[in-house]
């Protein structure tokens, strides 16, 4: 799979990741990694943040759409 963003720019580079939202192939330069916090517990116990985070790979378009930028 090739990077979709690079292809749009007239370049060709191998994809190393896939956007979890739109499925776009992404090279290392265009893959945007977002760390999601994980919580466990909750009523009737206090919720606690788990040290481990869930990584999420997004393309630039989806990342900016989700962030509202």
């Amino acid at each position, binding site marked *: 799979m090739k990077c979709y963003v690079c292809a749009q720019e007239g370049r060709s580079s191998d994809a190393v990741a896939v956007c979890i939202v739109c499925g776009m192939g992404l090279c290392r330069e265009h893959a945007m990694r977002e760390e999601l916090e994980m*919580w466990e*517990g*909750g009523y*009737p*116990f206090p*919720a606690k943040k788990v040290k481990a985070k869930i990584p999420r790979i997004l393309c630039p378009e989806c990342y900016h759409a989700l962030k509202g930028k």
Partner: protein
Amino acid sequence: MGDLGKRCIAELAGTALLVYFGAGAAAITLMIARGTDTGTPFNIGIGALGGLGDWFAIGMAFAIVIAAVIYSMGRVSGAHINPAVTIALWATKRFPAGEAGAYIVAQLIGAALGSLLFAASAGMDAVTIGGLGATAPFPGIGYGQAILAEAIGTFVLMVVIMGIAVDKRAPPGFAGLVIGLTVGGVITTIGNITGSSLNTARTFGPYLIDSLMGGPDLWVYLPIYIIGPIAGAVIAAFFYDFITGESSAAA
């Protein structure tokens, strides 16, 4: 401030809201019914206006504020807002002893603060006529009967908490609504037996502020609201573990 300190503040605030709006609704009902001919000595004023509907309205005030506190503070402290719930979770090894003690102190202080704020909001009639919504056995109800009624009511509350919140198989998101409505339903039935406290803190707060501000002296009844709710909640927690076949350590 440490994590436990913040959680205790959440318990304090949650219990204060419970007493302000829940017990406050009982006090307001008595204030509205002042001077009404109740017709029977079993009716002290709550029920004079709308029969069992008076208790249903008080129950709904409790239901709504309990749901609000659980949804807003449940993730912070667990929103026990009830020493009986905290003790039952501790007794089944789900909650550490040191934190349980801190939670109970916070709940008792919060309940007193809720009563004080209600008296400040509603005036001295809330103390002298409404008794700040303090609970006591109704005419003709004996000490043992009152303990039994409080234990049964709290048993229902704790079984529901176990089933809808503690049990990991429970559907998420319903705890606040279901637990609030459960308390509202229990109050509708046993409100006119014991006041349906189900919660030592909810009774302690109005008792303390009534004593300080010249309201009714009801301390002789406090053991009812210690023994009944705690016994009912602890039995319910072990009962739930037994019928679901879970060991307490596995939860």
